[in-house]
């Protein structure tokens, strides 16, 4: 009993240590598709400087990243690619839907645009705006960090919406 208790105490600290480390070194997979990608690039530039939050390591290989930022209009043709890339990312992984298009289809109510990527991807944070300003993307990153810090499965499913 006592040993078990100590063990469980031990693992929780490991957990929180790991979450703390994870939170401060989220490696984004920049899924830049269209206009929003430019603002995503802008958030990495010297002015907004995403590296203040430990996420400047934009990895173009899904196998090395744990945060997918979907920035841009996802069409039906593209959706298969996005899903394929998401599937290649190692667990645990998080998704930011950046911009109106990605979250809901935005201004494109047309035959070729998926009306919100949550139809085929689990999304954690939705960021409003067309495009969201880089500061707002950083805000989303902070939200994700909070989520990662809490780390447990329950909060993983809850969705966060960031207004413009």
């Amino acid at each position, binding site marked *: 009993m006592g040993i078990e208790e100590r063990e469980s105490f031990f693992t929780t600290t490991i957990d929180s240590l790991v979450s703390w480390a994870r939170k401060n070194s989220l490696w984004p997979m920049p899924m830049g598709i269209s*206009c929003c990608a430019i*603002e995503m690039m802008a958030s990495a*530039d010297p002015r907004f400087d995403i590296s203040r939050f430990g996420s400047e390591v934009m990895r173009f290989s899904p196998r090395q990243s744990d945060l997918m930022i979907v920035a841009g*209009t996802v*069409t039906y*043709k593209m959706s298969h*690619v996005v899903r394929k890339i998401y599937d290649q990312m190692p667990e645990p992984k998080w998704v930011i839907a950046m911009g109106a298009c990605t979250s809901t289809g935005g201004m*494109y109510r*047309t*035959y070729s645009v998926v009306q919100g990527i949550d139809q085929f991807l689990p999304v954690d944070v939705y960021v409003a705006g067309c495009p969201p300003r880089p500061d707002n993307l950083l805000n989303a990153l902070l939200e994700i960090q909070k989520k990662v810090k809490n780390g447990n499965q329950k909060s993983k499913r809850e969705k966060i919406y960031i207004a413009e």
Partner: protein
Amino acid sequence: MLSSEKIYKSLEDSDTIFTIDDSIENTMVLNMGPQHPATHGVLRLLVKLDGETVVSCIPDLGYLHRGYEKLAEHCSYHEFIPHTDRLDYLSPLANNVAYVLAVEKLIGIETTCRVKFIRVICCELARISSHLISVGTFAMDVGALTILLWTFREREKIQDIFDVLTGVRFTTSFTRIGGLANDLSDEVKKMIENFLNQFPEKLDECEKLILKNKIFIDRCEGVGTISKDDAIQFGATGPILRACGIEHDLRRDAPYLVYDELDFDIPVYSEGDALARFYVRLQEMRESVKIILQCLDKMPNESIRINVPKKVLPQKEKIYSKMEELIHDFMLINFGINPPVGEVYHSIESSKGELGFYISSNGSGYPWRLKIRSPSFCNLQIMPKMIVGSMISDIVVIIGSVDPVMGEADK
């Protein structure tokens, strides 16, 4: 089935039909994109390699096909202006201008002189900001990351100008049919002047950093060369055409706005390779600075909307205080501008080449058909010609030098 053939087959997926014409053992098919850092968005290339040499190359488009042309048929003429921002999202203001010029041509109205000058300023600022990204990402693809950060720093300054001028950083929707959303204030003028005063110096700095770099030059020189005839045959426009020694620029050849009153040069290089295209872009930015300075000088003080109440939206403050304006605004928003029946085409020289809008109207408030002639789409067509025969590592250089924007190419 041969084993190599099986491999090709497995590379096919539901998105592509890739036919194998011969299956010699030592060729290999490589799939590049649509998620690839060097493809500038969602371009997909299927390349067949013999060792490291590219034997054939098939671009696959449509990953960003958003259905603009269909959407346009369901939007009134005013409603479509915000959509033009997202076409070539590196220079949204130029698209706004191109579209309203086409609509104005259709209606047969002409704006005031001040509006024309402001539009020219917008176009040229957009050109600078687009070329900055193009130059930066091109250098990054070749391996010089610092340039990207430097050009982004300059671009942020332009973004700030747009922020004050139009209210947003880049999806501007600034122009209106028959005018502009708001005037260019003295504050913006000051900002533009400040920017232009320091910009050429900063550009020199960037230039010095790469153009004396042997690695950079070696990687770009003689890569992706195309001949004059090919460029014309394939309908290439913009920096690609000018880099093969053809002096063609719509600002000169079919002057619109006030370009015929301004004094500027058209940089032309004759090599036709990636480096020449890079030089053309650098020089064009310098010319743009010249143009904007002249515009700021010559700009008269005038109203920024013309008074054609049946076609042009009235100023916002008048809508709230005058009955007549309110009625016109209501009619325009609800029933559209109802242009005459007919078909027009108007094109401008955007940063990528000839950007044109073909509008067919049947007299109602909605365009019957709106066709976008996007420069990136047409320029992409020549890319396989550049790539075939070069090394695989040159592909990124070539894509960077063509500088396609997929939002525009896929429409």
